[in-house]
């Protein structure tokens, strides 16, 4: 049973004084999801549940939680550049239209009990690094998928292949974070064309619907900007088929409202040199092969 509680107490040890936690949702196995009051009241109001694109990222991807050296500050993780890029997209969206409601809404989620117990440290670290996180979900390996579902997550990002696969299997649209991403100003999203036209039949149709809905949201966001100097770039790569399959993927994406910026048709050429050049933050519809 999931219940919502109002938490108006300022809890000590949860970070600096202006970090107040407004609303809490307790999941059935005591996972705790907390809505953080943003320093910026405007954007937190605008992250309207219906219009926001909710992206959940695992804490292990955001921070390098390894070193237990007594110092409370974590190192930065693989997802760090991604969060910065998401923030930049939001900033630019609001520049174009201060009343914009189609924004990224970032949820930081723990997916194992060890991380779950680091909640206060995780929150203070997001503050330390100035990350715009609107919700924290302190879940364990048993209930993180439920947290994803109750929070209506549009996209779940992890560096852990099996986590992503598990979530996908339960209908949550998931993708692997690219470990090799160089820090890029621009949010670069890569669609793997072979899966665009031939969706993975293992994942349930709920996940495919979620995939299409996320793509459409992304496509709409992209349209807010011009051809040049966009903070978001949509890249299509087809690995196996020839030009016809790339053409089909372009048409399919277009029919879903996604206009592609860059397209690469590899027709069997090895993928990894291209991925190193393309530097996507994450890969969508990937059949999880490297």
């Amino acid at each position: 049973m999931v219940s919502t509680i109002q938490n108006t107490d300022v809890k000590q040890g949860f970070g600096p004084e202006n970090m107040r936690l407004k609303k809490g949702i307790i999941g059935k196995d005591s996972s705790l999801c907390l809505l953080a009051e943003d320093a910026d009241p405007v954007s937190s109001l605008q992250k309207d549940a219906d219009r926001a694109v909710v992206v959940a990222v695992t804490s292990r991807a955001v921070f390098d939680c390894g070193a237990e050296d007594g110092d409370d500050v974590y190192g930065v993780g693989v997802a760090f550049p991604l969060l910065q890029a998401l923030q930049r997209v939001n900033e630019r969206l609001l520049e174009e239209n201060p009343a914009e409601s189609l924004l990224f809404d970032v949820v930081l989620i723990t997916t194992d009990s060890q991380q779950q117990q680091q909640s206060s440290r995780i929150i203070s670290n997001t503050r330390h690094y100035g990350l715009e996180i609107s919700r924290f979900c302190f879940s364990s390996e048993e209930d993180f998928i439920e947290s994803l579902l109750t929070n209506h997550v549009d996209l779940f990002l992890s560096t852990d292949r099996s986590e992503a696969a598990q979530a996908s299997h339960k209908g949550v649209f998931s993708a692997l974070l690219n470990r090799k991403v160089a820090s890029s100003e621009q949010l670069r999203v890569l669609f793997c064309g072979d899966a665009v036209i031939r969706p993975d039949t293992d994942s349930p149709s709920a996940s495919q619907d979620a995939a299409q809905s996320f793509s459409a949201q992304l496509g709409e966001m992209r349209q807010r900007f011009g051809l040049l100097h966009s903070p978001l770039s949509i890249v299509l790569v087809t690995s196996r088929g020839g030009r016809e399959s790339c053409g089909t993927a372009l048409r399919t994406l277009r029919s879903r409202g996604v206009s592609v910026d860059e397209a690469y048709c590899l027709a069997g050429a090895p993928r990894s040199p291209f991925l190193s050049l393309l530097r996507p933050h994450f890969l969508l519809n990937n059949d999880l092969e490297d």
Partner: protein
Amino acid sequence: MSLKNGPTLTARGPDLASISNRTPLEDARMQLNPSTPTRKPKPPKPENAITIGVSARVLFNMEKEQQIYQQQGLEDYIKYQVEHETQPFNPGPAFSFVKALEAVNTRLRELYPDSEELFDVVLMTNNHAYVGLRLINTINHHQLFIERFCMTGGNSPIGYLKAYHTNLYLSADPAKVREALEEGIAAATMFTQEKMTQVSDTQLRVAFDGDAVLFSDESERIYKAHGLDKFFEHEKAHENKPLDHGPLKGFLEALGKLQKKFYGKGQRMDCPIRTYLVTARSAASSGTRALKTLRSWGLEIDEALFLAGAPKGPMLEKIRPHIFFDDQMFHVEGAAEIGTVACHVPYGIAQGVTKKGINDKETSAAPK
């Protein structure tokens, strides 16, 4: 850039897709044997193939669209392209060269059905993927065998050239060509030509200038600094010392490798690849060093034409190459005047301007 010198008579090379040296009997045999597959062959692995990267503007004629881009900007250009998506482009300067490459592939596949030592043409363009469908439609329309492409949406194509192990890059943008040369990739700038004379449909013909194309520019430097007499003296004195290699040496080498595959099957006389050296050096003197250099590299060239400073046009008119590489615009323009598809290799001392001087208006977002 477009060269509009000379008469406006235009003729395009015929479709080279249908070349066959089979006898009528062999043809009949093939028809009786239905097991010959007609499905599209798989593209070869990049490291095995001879990869030719061509930009959209040299493969196809995009003059009108380029004008829209320059006069009205990127958004209008894209809008026009999308509106005309089902309208194929006409052939550009590299078109007949690409068709000839495909004809050679057909012959190679007949002789070596399992080999991946083939030409692989990759479309390498700066265009946004919005133009992608029009380009794919055009490739389909002209029945070109191009299965690989990169539409970089304004980003530099150089890294992708390397990822495809590109052996030769042809583009309309001199800045990109120079960048490729700096990265050790053979490259040349192509221009739209009013006149493109008919070329052979049974044999790919590639013509090269010598100094600063196949060879380094070391001797050209001497000529420029000290004049013709000193140049002759120097070349005679160093006759047996091979010249250093130039940017197109590797491509000649690749062509030679394929030629040997035909010789190996007894097809030296009707080899579908023929190479030419068209140089201002003279046969009597400075030409010797050039020939000896090629020999020291283990490279053959089918015909060496020493012009002793005479214009190259008339000779090219006789040869009718599908493509001619020269480092001097004077010769490129001269060739284009008589209808030879000529391209500029911006390498060496003959390039009088600094990198920054040329084409400052070219931005990385310019579609190519």
